[in-house]
């Protein structure tokens, strides 16, 4: 039990995927305009990455490894993740149309996100068991969601505060992201 908690805390705070590993910056900057969309995106990411961690682990274990096709991991994972996300989108569109409408374009955006692939690959490289992979996936995506929501809150406030013309929009957003990154450095050493 303890190792799973450490795994999750490590992925959320110490090695945050966005702020420490600098992955998934695209949706991080793109979806951080308002809290409601950020929240939806965060939720979608948690769901997709956790499930994708499991699915890719199983694919690696039962198809790639026995066939000796480990070198095709990248292609295979992209294929699997893309299919999985599309499948989820179709199911969502039918069963929860309101949620689907809310997330809209962000669901496919997760597919082309380097963060998902990174989680899947790290799971294999670190030789995690299935349960550990799921835990790590959950932690990584929760970390992404956390960073996204914090950043969105900051951005909303900064946009309202009327920055100088030259710093508006992406400029001040990147500066803020950098400062947030430095803030998260404070967690270094929390989990050995």
């Amino acid at each position, binding site marked *: 039990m303890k190792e799973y908690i450490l795994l999750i805390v490590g992925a959320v705070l110490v090695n945050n995927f966005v702020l420490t590993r600098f992955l998934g910056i695209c949706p991080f900057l793109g979806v951080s305009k308002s809290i409601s969309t950020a929240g939806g995106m965060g939720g979608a990411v948690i769901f997709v990455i956790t499930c994708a961690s499991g699915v890719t682990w199983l694919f690696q274990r039962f198809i790639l490894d026995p066939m000796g096709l480990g070198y095709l991991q990248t292609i295979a994972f992209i294929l699997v993740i893309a299919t999985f996300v599309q499948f989820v989108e179709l199911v969502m569109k039918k069963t929860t149309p309101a949620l689907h409408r809310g997330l809209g374009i962000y669901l496919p955006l997760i597919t082309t996100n380097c963060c998902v692939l990174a989680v899947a690959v790290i799971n294999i490289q670190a030789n995690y068991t299935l349960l550990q992979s799921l835990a790590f996936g959950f932690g990584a995506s929760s970390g992404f969601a956390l960073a996204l929501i914090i950043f969105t809150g900051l951005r909303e*406030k900064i946009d*309202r*505060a*009327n920055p100088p013309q030259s710093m508006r929009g992406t400029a001040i957003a990147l500066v803020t992201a950098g400062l947030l990154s430095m803030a998260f450095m404070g967690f270094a050493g929390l989990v050995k």
Partner: protein
Amino acid sequence: MTQILKPVRKALGGIHPAYHKELARDSAVRELTVPKSLRVSMAQHLGAPAKANVKKGDAVLRGQKIGDAAGFISSPVHAPTSGKVADVAEDITAAGTRAQAVVIEPDGQDQWSPSLPPAMKWEEADSAALITRVAESGIAGMGGAGFPTHVKLSPPKGKTIDTLIINGAECEPFLTADFRLMVEQAGRVWTGCRIIRKILNARTLRVAIEDNKPEAIAAMEKAMGNTEGDTAIVVLPTSYPQGAEKQQIFAITGREVPSGGLPMDVSAVVENVGTAAAICDAVVHGYPLVERVTTVTGKPVVQPGNIRARLGTSFADLVAACGGTRGVVAKVIAGGPMMGLAQFGMEVCTTKTTSGLLLVPPSDVSVFESSPCISCGRCVDACPMRLMPCDLSQMLEAEDYLGAEAMNVLDCIECGCCAYCCPAHRPLVQHMRSGKSRAMLRRKQQQAEKKA
């Protein structure tokens, strides 16, 4: 022996400005003789302004009704003295709006109208009769809000009141009118308290006084004598805005009025000591509300003090009664420095809610240049309603009125604590007022659309 209690909770937020009450606190109430002209406004209370029922040339007597209440949330207006109606015309109010006013030229006789209602034995009267007397006498909240008292004392079915709080806190700096009223006429105030308690059938009665008014506490204690039932004086720590009703209810009972709610939602009613005294006059003697005590103060005033003047007395006459001014007067504020309204002329006249007139010399006026919010958070610490004035003002500057409404801008009591402590000199209260008026407008439009 009257019980003296401490508050049960510490009011949240608030500030401690310099009070400067020593300018007027020791000067006994002076009566101002009736001036040469009185302009009695029809808009002396919250709700629909009264409708004048006299015309130019009519003769009026003191206490005669010259304005009929226009609707349920409204109050009648009475002539403060006997004389002739010189005009019924649009006049400027202290809030800068315009309203109908009856201009009376006093005849010097100051004769009471013979058709005043008779004295009532209030111990035996029933609530309905007492409330009708309060309504007929034109009594509105004299603490400054001017809410028609008979409406406050008639909570709708389903709302029982178990706590009555009489507000003698007078937290606004410079003002001492309520203080002098309690020191000099504690008996009148106490009778008013008992009458209100009878009307509401409230189990608990608390008289709230701040601890910077020991003489008032002593005077009320003496007047109250041996009290019956759950009655006590509560000595509140001096802070601003301790006199705001929601903050007072919280400090005395520990109950929090819900967002968007009223004190009756937590079974409490708060009335000002001045209102209580006016109720005593109306019930015991049959006198309608035609005069009030106003603190005229400030460094430029020669003899700052508390003046009892008839309603409709111009600010110029009030200041003249205090010996006039010395030096330059840069700003004139109707009310106190925190929540008062700056005036641009001395021809505005007193109403039922004019608790003070503050004159400010040029050295004390702050003309500011506001800069962007630095998110220091002082306003959040100071806000007694636990709002976030920094975020709200940024939203309102960006004209995000829906966002401001979602952040409860309608709960703002406009006390001014946030603007007082803002290091960037942002006009926060003005932002809040514009946000509140837009939110109310939007709600009205929504309701109108729903009906259509």
